[in-house]
């Protein structure tokens, strides 16, 4: 259990820091990649044109979060399935 307690403590500290930052600054919590785009614009004086565009873009933020959620769900199902399978097998055999 000791490891679980440490991990939960780390996550709680992380959540606390987030609450502190979001409560005390006007941080927007945008993506780091978007900020990098801003730096590129600054470095090149706004002259940089991306050499390619995404083939397909999620039409809205909602659809994008759906697809991210789907990615998480798929992964989590696989992880849970195998851990559950092995745990059950260990217990019955």
């Amino acid at each position, binding site marked *: 259990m*000791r*490891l*679980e307690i*440490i*991990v939960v403590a*780390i*996550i709680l500290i*992380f959540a606390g*820091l*987030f609450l502190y*930052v*979001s409560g005390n*600054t006007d*941080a*927007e*919590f*945008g*993506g*780091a*990649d978007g*900020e*990098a*785009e801003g*730096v*590129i614009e*600054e*470095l*090149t004086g706004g002259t*940089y044109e*991306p*050499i*390619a*565009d*995404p*083939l*397909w*873009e*999620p039409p809205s933020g909602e659809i*994008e979060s759906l*697809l*991210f*959620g789907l*990615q*998480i769900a*798929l*992964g*989590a*199902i*696989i*992880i849970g399935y*195998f*851990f559950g*399978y*092995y*745990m059950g097998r*260990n217990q019955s055999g």
Partner: protein
Amino acid sequence: MHIMEGFLPGPWWQIWFALSIPVIVYGIYKLNRLVKENREILPLLAVAGAFIFVLSALKLPSVTGSCSHPTGTGLAAILFGPAITAVLGTIVLLYQALFLAHGGLTTLGANVFSMGIVGPVVAYTIYKVGMKMNLNFYLVVFLAATLGDWATYVVTSLELALAFPADPGGVMGSFKAFATIFAVTQVPLAIIEGAITALIFKYIIQVRSDMLTRLNVLSDAAISKIKGAIS
């Protein structure tokens, strides 16, 4: 966060592809051999891939006031080595580039190089060295996954800095600017990734410790020592 589509001009995107492709090819070869020799390994491989899937979709807020996501590659790197991890990372990066407009096809080479290759190499190396030094197993896993995650974003910053040197300041000047965004934002997220990876390893030891000996991740003696410590 990966480098966005179109944001690496030539010759840089080609250079990163040239460096990444041989590793991916070698990884596919190793993957085939591993699965052929040992079909029982497949579920663990699926779990390692799924772990990258989950963690790289979690966009978390950082103390810098912006968001980024962990990589999840430390687990696979410790279990299967960097080359196979490069293949798993490529699959995830392709999914995100095609369906989420996150990352991109022209920047795929650079993103595979940072997330699929350098991060896993760092994680793998730290794991091997840490275990040689006889440090606590979970501490070693934590350090390996944390620093592997962080190295990924240091390399991302470097890739962008090389393509967009500052004037004045050169590559070092723009590296500082990009690292302020990527590497600093990543510090707390990397720590979270390290902690969760250590926890996953605890459960793998509980349910399938035989796999870890077969993959040469841990010796029998080391496993019984760890099991003795938690029970």
